[in-house]
C-alpha cells in the first residue's frame, strides 16, 4: 500500500503515457515532466512567500499576513491565500522600461534568469524513480547552468542604465563568483566519496541504515563541515540575507532589478526563489540523503514527501537566518569567502581523502574531526582578530 503511494506519480505518468501512440510517447513523457516541475515549484514559491512573511512576522512578534484565504468566502486559512492578490497585483502592474535602457537586453534578462534555473531542476531526484533526466555528469550540469544566472544579473544591471542597477549587478557577480568556489569544492567532497557525478548514485549511496540511522553524509565530520559550507555558500548564491548586498534596499534600492516592474519583476522574483529551491535541493541530495528517510522505521513515508519536508525545513532555516542576521559589508563578504570558506573547504577535501584511506572506527572519526575543527578554530581566530570592535568614531560628522 505504501509502496503504491510512493510510486503513485511514477505509475500515473506511465498510465498517461500509455494512452499515447508509441511514436509520440517520448515527447509526451518529456512534456509531462517538463510541465509538472514549474507547476509544482511555482506553487511552492507562492506558498513560501507567504510562509516567509508570516515567519518573519512571528519572529518580530507580529502576526504577518492573516487575512486573505479562499477568495469570495469567509475562510481565511491563516492568510495563506495572500499569494493570490500578490500575484494579480504584480501581473497587472504597468511594465515600465526606462527610456535610456537597452530595450532588447532589458527584455531578455528575466528570461535568461528563469531558463537556467528551471533547467537545473531536470537533474534533481525528487523521489524514488522521480528524476527527469539522469545525466551522467548531473552535478556538473547543475553548476554549469547555475553559472548562467550571473549573466542574466549582469544583463539586467547593465541594460537598465542606472547606477544602482549597475552597482547591484557588479556586487552580485563578484559575490556569486566568489561563493561558487566553496560551493563547488564542498560538493566535490561528496563526489570523491561516491565516485560518481550522477545524483541518483549519490542518493543511492546514502540509502542505508546502521542501528536505524541513515547513512547520510551529514552524519560524518567532513559531511557536516561540507554541509555547513555548502549551506552558507548557497545562502550567498541565492542572494539571501546576510549576503543580500546585491539587492540591498537601503543602499542601492534593490540593485539589479531597480528598473524592473510588473511582470518582469515577478519573473525575477520567481527566478530568485526557484534558484534558492534548486540549490537547496542539490544540498539535500548531496548531504541530507535526498529522498531517503532519516530513520529506518520511517521508510514507509513516501520518498517525495521526505524531499519536500527537507526542502521546506531548509527554506525555513533560510528565513530564520534572514530574520536574525544583519547584512555584511562588501569587504567582510569577500574576506569571509576567500579567507575562511575557501581554506576550510580545501582542508575538507583533504579530510575526505583521509577518511577514505583510514580504517573505519573511532580513530577515523577523531582524526577527521580534529583536522576540521582545528582549521576552523584557527581560521575563525584569524577572522576575528581583524576586527577590533570599539566604539565607532565619526571623524567628519561631528
Amino acid at each position, binding site marked *: 500500500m505504501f509502496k503504491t503511494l510512493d510510486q503513485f506519480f511514477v505509475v500515473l505518468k506511465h498510465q498517461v503515457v500509455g494512452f499515447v501512440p508509441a511514436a509520440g510517447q517520448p515527447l509526451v513523457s518529456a512534456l509531462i515532466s517538463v510541465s509538472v516541475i514549474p507547476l509544482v515549484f511555482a506553487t511552492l514559491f507562492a506558498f513560501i512567500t507567504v510562509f516567509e512573511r508570516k515567519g518573519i512576522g512571528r519572529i518580530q512578534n507580529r502576526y504577518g499576513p492573516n487575512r486573505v484565504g479562499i477568495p469570495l468566502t469567509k475562510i481565511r486559512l491563516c492568510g495563506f491565500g495572500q499569494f493570490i492578490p500578490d500575484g494579480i497585483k504584480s501581473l497587472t502592474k504597468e511594465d515600465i522600461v526606462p527610456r535610456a535602457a537597452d530595450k532588447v537586453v532589458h527584455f531578455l534578462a528575466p528570461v535568461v534568469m528563469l531558463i537556467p534555473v528551471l533547467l537545473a531542476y531536470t537533474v534533481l531526484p525528487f523521489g524514488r524513480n522521480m528524476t527527469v533526466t539522469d545525466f551522467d555528469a548531473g552535478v556538473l550540469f547543475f553548476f554549469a547552468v547555475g553559472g*548562467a544566472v550571473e549573466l542574466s544579473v549582469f544583463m539586467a544591471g547593465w541594460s537598465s542604465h542606472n547606477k544602482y542597477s549597475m552597482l547591484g549587478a557588479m556586487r552580485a557577480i563578484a559575490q556569486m563568483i566568489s561563493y561558487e568556489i566553496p560551493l563547488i569544492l564542498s560538493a566535490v567532497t561528496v563526489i570523491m566519496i561516491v565516485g560518481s557525478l550522477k545524483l541518483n548514485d549519490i542518493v543511492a549511496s546514502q540509502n542505508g541504515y546502521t542501528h536505524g540511522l541513515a547513512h547520510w553524509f551529514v552524519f560524518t565530520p567532513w559531511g557536516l563541515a561540507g554541509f555547513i559550507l555548502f549551506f552558507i555558500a548557497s545562502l550567498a548564491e541565492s542572494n539571501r540575507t546576510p549576503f543580500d548586498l546585491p539587492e540591498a534596499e537601503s543602499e542601492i534600492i534593490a540593485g539589479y532589478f531597480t528598473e524592473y516592474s510588473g511582470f518582469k519583476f515577478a519573473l525575477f522574483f520567481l527566478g530568485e526563489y526557484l534558484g534558492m529551491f534548486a540549490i537547496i535541493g542539490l544540498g539535500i541530495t548531496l548531504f541530507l540523503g535526498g529522498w531517503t528517510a532519516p530513520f529506518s522505521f520511517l521508510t514507509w513515508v513516501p520518498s517525495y514527501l521526505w524531499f519536500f519536508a527537507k526542502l521546506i525545513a531548509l527554506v525555513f532555516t533560510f528565513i530564520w537566518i534572514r530574520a536574525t542576521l544583519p547584512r555584511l559589508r562588501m569587504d567582510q563578504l569577500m574576506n569571509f569567502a576567500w579567507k575562511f570558506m575557501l581554506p576550510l573547504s580545501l582542508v575538507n577535501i583533504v579530510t575526505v581523502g583521509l577518511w577514505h584511506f583510514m580504517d573505519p572506527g573511532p580513530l577515523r572519526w577523531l582524526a577527521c574531526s580534529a583536522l576540521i575543527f582545528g582549521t576552523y578554530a584557527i581560521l575563525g581566530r584569524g577572522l576575528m582578530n581583524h576586527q577590533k570592535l*570599539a566604539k565607532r568614531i565619526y571623524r567628519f560628522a561631528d
Partner: protein
Amino acid sequence: MSPAFIVIAIVTLFAAAAAMSLRNLVHCALSLVVALAGLAALYLALDAQFVGFVQILVYVGAVAILIVFAVLLTRSDTTPNQTVLSPGWGIGIAISAVVFATLGWATLNSPGLPKEMLQAPETTVKNIGDLLMTRYVLPLEVIGLLLTAALIGAVIIAMKEGPQKANSEEQQLKAEKPSSPPLQGGAR
C-alpha cells in the same frame, strides 16, 4: 546531419558574426555568449556531454563574465564617433576569406574522411577521470601548473601599481588629523 544540428550551427555562426561586428562592446560580449552556448549544444549533439557542460561552465560562467568585466573596466568616452575597424580592415577580411576558402576546399576535397558515425562510445565521467589520472596525468599536472601561474600572473598584472600611493594617502589623512584614532568599522 540532423536538422537540429543545422539550426544550432546557423545560430552559432550568426552569433559569432554578431560578436565580431556589433558596435556596442557589451552586445558583442553577450552575442559571444550565445555563440559559445551554441558550441556547447553542438558538442552535446556530437555526444560529448561532459565537454559540453564544461564548455558552459567555463565559458558562459567564467570567461564571458571576465570579458564583460574587462569591457566595463576599460570604458572610454572617446570611441563612439571613431570607426570600430582598423585602417587595414579590407586586407584582414580578405585574408580570412582566403583562409575559409582554403579550409573549405580542403574539407570538401579530402578523400579519406570517414563517412559514417560509429556507435557512440560509453563516455562516462568515470572513464574521463580514469584517463586523466593514468594516461594523461602529465598533461594534467602541467595544466595545473599553468593555471596556477596564470592565476598569479593575472593578479600581479592587474594589481594596482604602487602601494606607495596608498601609503601617501594614509599619511595625508594622518597629517590632517594627527590625534584621531584610526577609522574603525567605517568604509575604507
